[in-house]
């Protein structure tokens, strides 16, 4: 579309709600959040329910008023502008299609508000319906089309007015697993094609990784880490992030011998090794080592002795729970060459030490 894409910047945004249980307290839904979305980028807010991601999105849309802080869309500070004047598109979790209007009228609604000529509206609506492959359903009502089609109508309605920013509030959570995977590819394709700056809320990590330029992990109203999917997966800052994106074993090292410059020398499972360390690790404070299940390789020359506690077959991989030096550790084997192993077998494994990472111990129970 012809609009020049603009960025979004959120500075020191705070939103508090009064707490339910005691009258004095309050809950931070956004706790001094600062982030930026580059023009044309798709950024995902990822976190467990209640982490404040939807609140953040609704503040950008204008449905919620921030307690303090600023929101810039392009160069414009919008936190005092009513939601209908922000030129922000939004896709709702429930799609929120107008039940009393046809697909065509749903999509045309925003254009009619802009007092566009009838013929132009018709052209534009036809174009977008074709792009979304729903041109055959123009005269149907929302309750007469499938979930996936409703999804496309909602997207068409949101992008047709050429908003500066597109907001997605868990748009795929109502679809079944197969369709969800298909639609997220579609969404990404269309978003790239339209080139629209997007902020996408989800609690599904694979969805976030599949479609985002940048992923922002949130917990309790705070940003825990921001970066590309790869950065976050490979170099999480703390135990929460590591556990939320992908699977991970967290093993207490026997001792941390030295810690400096992002490297640590540790004694782990009875062996001394040098591994990467998060910048949040502090000397003298308790730490854990992150071991991803796929970074444990079964090999006859392995340095660690292990015993198979349990085993499950998942097709692409075999999952073992191993006992290594008294610790129960999950292992994923993608090689298919160890299928003959049985529960109770004594084996040897190697760790991919480059992928291990020392993280500060997280003793809060949240996930």
């Amino acid at each position, binding site marked *: 579309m012809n609009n020049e894409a603009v960025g979004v910047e959120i500075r020191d945004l705070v939103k508090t709600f009064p707490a339910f249980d005691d009258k004095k307290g*309050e809950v931070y839904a956004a706790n001094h959040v600062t982030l930026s979305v580059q023009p044309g980028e798709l950024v995902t807010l990822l976190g467990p329910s209640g982490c404040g991601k939807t609140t953040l999105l609704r503040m950008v849309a204008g449905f919620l008023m921030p307690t303090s802080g600023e929101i810039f869309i392009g160069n414009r500070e919008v936190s*005092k502008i009513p939601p*209908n004047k922000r*030129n922000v598109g939004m896709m709702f979790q429930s799609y*929120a299609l107008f039940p009393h209007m046809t697909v065509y009228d749903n999509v045309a609604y925003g254009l009619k508000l802009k007092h566009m000529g009838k013929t132009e509206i018709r052209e534009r609506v036809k174009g977008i319906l074709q792009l979304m492959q729903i041109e055959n359903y123009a005269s149907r009502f929302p309750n007469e089309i499938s979930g996936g089609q409703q999804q496309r109508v909602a997207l068409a309605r949101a992008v047709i007015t050429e908003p500066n920013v597109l907001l997605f509030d868990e748009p795929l959570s109502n679809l079944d697993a197969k369709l969800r995977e298909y639609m997220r590819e579609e969404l990404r394709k269309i978003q790239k094609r339209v080139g629209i700056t997007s902020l996408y809320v989800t609690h599904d990590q694979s969805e976030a990784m599949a479609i985002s330029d940048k992923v922002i992990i949130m917990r309790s109203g705070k940003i825990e880490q921001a970066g590309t999917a790869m950065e976050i997966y490979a170099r999480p800052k703390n135990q929460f992030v590591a556990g939320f994106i992908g699977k991970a074993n967290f093993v207490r090292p026997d001792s941390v011998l030295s810690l400096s410059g992002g490297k640590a020398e540790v004694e782990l499972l009875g062996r001394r090794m040098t591994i990467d360390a998060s910048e949040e690790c502090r000397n003298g404070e308790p730490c854990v080592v992150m071991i991803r299940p796929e970074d444990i390789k079964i090999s006859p020359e392995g340095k660690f002795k292990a015993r198979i506690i349990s085993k499950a077959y998942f097709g692409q991989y075999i999952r073992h729970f191993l006992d290594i030096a008294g610790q129960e550790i999950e292992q994923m084997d993608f090689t298919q060459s160890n299928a003959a192993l049985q529960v109770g077998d004594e084996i040897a494994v190697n760790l991919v030490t480059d992928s291990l990472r020392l993280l500060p111990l997280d003793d809060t129970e949240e996930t």
Partner: protein
Amino acid sequence: MDSPGKARKKQQKSEKRKEFLMLIRQPGLLFAIIFVFAVLILFCIYPIVRLFISCLTDKSGQLNLDNINYVFTKTDFFQAFWNSIKLGLFVGLMATIVGYLYAFAITRTKLPGKKFFNIMAILPILSPPFVISLAVMLLFGRSGLITKNLLHIRGNNIYGFTWLSIVQILSLFPLAYLNLKGMLETLDSSVENASRTLGASRLKVFLTVTLPLSLPGFLSSFLIIFAKSLCDFGNPQVLAGDYNVLSVSAYLQIVGLFDLKTGSFIALSILLPCMLAYLIQNYWVSKRSFITVTGKATGTVELIREKKIVIPLFVILLLLTLFTILMYGTVVYVSFVKTWGVNWSMTLDSYQFILKRGERAIKDTLLLSSIATPCTALLGMLIAFLLVRKNFFGKRLMSAASILPFAVPGIALGIGYVVAFNTKPIQLTGTALIIIVAMVFRTLSIGVETGSNSLRQVDPSIEEAAINLGAGNARTFFTISLPIMKSALFSGLLNSFIRSMTSVSAVIFLVSVNWNLLTVNILSEIESNRLGAASAYCVALMVMVVLAVGVLEFIVNGLFARRRRSYE
């Protein structure tokens, strides 16, 4: 350094300020809120306040309690007060029991003809308030068909407590029925099933589970009907005779003795027990209700089939229904008879009479109700929209004020309007406007309630989607919320139209030479003993109500039809 508490207060204050700033930037919304507050204060709160002031002051506006002293010592106020309370308690109890039987039979048993019984129970709500009174006079009165012609009783006296309470029970039990039916339907039936599987007999289940669980509903119906009976003016005016009740005595003070202050005070004395009943019902009983709406299907009740339970209930319902049919049938029949009790030949004389004498009243009633109805519905939906969807200062006041004229006795509201609007700066008495306004605000809370209920069931993000696409508040309301509220709008319109057409007490002081209403005419025909004409008026009124249902359905469907076109 600020303490954390102070900082928080500051933050909340700034948030409030921002919300206010946001409101100011939406002039439509701000205007709507101010407009609603203005009309509510002017037409709901102000007249009641003026009514209070009028009782407590003399002509020069000084505080003066002589008026109250006069009422207490020189009139039979206490007798009337006690009579009203006695009537209310008795009618409340009996109508609730009848309503409960009815509701239990419909929701818990395998009863033949449920749909028919259901419709027949609602009929008295839809009809003008005097129909049953009128029929009682025609059938059981001095020259009544049953008393005089069949039983040959001379000069049977129907005026007094007995027949008044029967008529009130018959016309008010449907309210209890609807209330209790809703309650019994939402009562989690798995509890009853559980009790049954534990080996309890039917009677035991009823006595130990169903009945205790429905007590809050029972109490709330009782309170509603108690208040309704106290406020009722039409039936006592026709049937009370020497049994003096408050609403009639307030009316007589004003119309007979031109004593507005005494009338005001008596009207106010109905208001207090009514409001009390209403408050208890709203804030105390409803909190103790066992109804849990979880949106989860909890399984169906096993309907009772045993003949020894179903047959007696069926007989009771059938007798009640037959009696209702007899009442309505009599009124329809009488409207076509030459002279009731004397000459039974069929004629259209009564209709010719009312067309000649009451043409104006019919036209005025239709016109004023037709203007009031859409106003009520729109204002009601607007208030529902504001209350359910928007945040602003004074929301509770708005909600309370919109309910006030409904909870206040009609006679008190009518007198309040007279007191408040018969002098400058707002002189409205004698105009059509004051009647329309009375109709609108008397029925407003029905519109607000139906609107709120239906809005709460609509996903708010549908409206947010419209706002997000650039629609302002007004446009969102008219293009999205209102069409979605279509069926609520329809029932709101219908309800308010019927109530406008059939209201008596609130408007009886507001009619004038210029503007007259059908119900007031019916009353005066009854008082002049022209029962044929009164019957014809009643039938005409009922026909208009039925026609209105059709017309309204047509209009609402036409306005907000889901339009399907091809887009080639």
